[in-house]
């Protein structure tokens, strides 16, 4: 276990930010598509609180796990910058960043409902991007863990593994889940919810989607 943590810690120290050669990211994925390179991604105002810009980060995961069978051959590099949409040309009206861990019973319950939310609100421009950061024993999440999670919940939105805890600074990594609503035009955090606060978060998201639709 210690070796695993030590490896993750070393890797994290070597791979802060995007464009790096994270050892768990197959080279061929880093080289394909937009990957982690995002020269136009906003660099000013980066922070972890409401109103701050989310720092770009990239992960291994699945963009559409309901359409591509999760397997080693289909793993993709996914970055926050993939959803940065300053001109409104990607069709992303709101981005919901979510964290989960297998040890987190509240996350398990929350993910029982997220696929239905993605189905309902995806056509209105909501993209849910979830990261699995630890397994059931508090070890860094592996891509195998991610694939079991996706299979368990029939995940139908982008989901990644976050063994390096890139989303850790936004809350405590001892705590889950975390939900952040992000404006894809600016990548600024609009709302930050610690825990599964669906009763307040989903009405906000729905009203924000309506407002953005009306403004188009």
């Amino acid at each position, binding site marked *: 276990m210690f070796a695993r943590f030590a490896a993750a810690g070393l890797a994290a120290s070597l791979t802060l930010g995007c464009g790096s050669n994270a050892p768990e990211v197959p080279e061929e994925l880093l080289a394909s598509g937009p990957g982690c390179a995002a020269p136009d991604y906003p660099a000013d105002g980066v922070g972890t609180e409401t109103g701050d810009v989310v720092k770009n980060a990239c992960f291994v995961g699945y963009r559409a796990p309901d359409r591509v069978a999760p397997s080693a051959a289909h793993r993709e590099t996914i970055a926050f910058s993939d959803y940065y949409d300053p001109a409104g040309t990607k069709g992303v009206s709101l981005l919901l960043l979510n964290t989960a861990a*297998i040890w987190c019973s*509240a996350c398990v319950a929350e993910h029982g409902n997220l696929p239905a939310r993605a189905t309902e609100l995806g056509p209105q421009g909501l993209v849910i991007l979830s990261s699995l950061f630890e397994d059931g024993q*508090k070890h860094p999440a592996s891509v195998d863990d991610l694939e079991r999670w996706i299979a368990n*919940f029939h995940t139908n939105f982008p989901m990644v593994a976050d063994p390096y805890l890139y989303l850790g600074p936004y809350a405590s990594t001892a705590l889950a889940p975390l939900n952040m609503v992000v404006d894809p035009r600016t990548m600024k955090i609009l709302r930050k919810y610690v825990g599964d606060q669906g009763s307040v978060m989903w009405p906000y998201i729905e009203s924000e989607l309506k407002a953005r639709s009306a403004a188009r």
Partner: protein
Amino acid sequence: MTRLLPCLVCASSLVVAAACASDPASPVTNDAGAAGEPASGGSSNGGKAGSTPVSCPTGPGQKTDATPVLVGLVSGQVVDEQGEPTSAGLVQVCGKDICINARVGDNGQLAESVAQELNAPACKFGDGLTWGKLALPIAAGDNELGTLMTARLPDFADAAAFTPGTSITSGGVTLELAASAHVEVDTLTYEEEAQQGFRAVQLPEQAVTQLNQDFVAGWALSPVETVICPSPALSLKNTTKLAPGTPLELFILGVDVLEAWAPYGGWQKIGEGQVSDDGAALEFPDGLPLLTAIGIREKR
């Protein structure tokens, strides 16, 4: 240990059945869960898969108060069945909405400054893998929980396979699996096949007392949140020397935030039974629909 047979049609949870989905029209009944509706499939712990053709019913539901409370410092000492300090694998302070991994020192000291509003908060201790998983509800403000005792589960190598149509025993607990039994294991938590067999450990008297439920005996079962239907008849070794014929009540501990069978961090009566005529066993013929910690109370 007989190898478990994963049901190929079940995307998530491991399902062992007499005829693994070969007869999706076969009745799936659950005496203890008569009020429940059939689940959409998958495991009972929130990790629902969507298209399992045969699945166990969900429980009747036991909703707790949804008003969050501000939890402060949660403290105590975690010990094993010998009273020796341990981290018990995993100690968590969780509500139905947020879960926090608590830090436990080498001496078993728990001192977690939560400073969060939690919905139906509980302190869960024991990882359910190496240790029996237990929970105590906690209140608003600071909570000094005193000694938190759990017990080691038997080794994985000593687990009993969930073979339909057989009796399986571990730690003095016997389950009578029907020939048509369906068993749904949380394969997210119990990812290795070796972890997916049945194991049980009787709780020491101190561990039973800490639960504050007037139980005369208690056991921790694993894999936690395994759903079995039809509910297997339950027989427990009468280690407490209760007299033959003594009427009993069976309770289960809720650790599922969806509260399908029991309130989160609380106990729910799930059936009645009695001490066998020969005094050897505590018998609950109506069965146990869910594997979690169980407590036995003399019927009042």
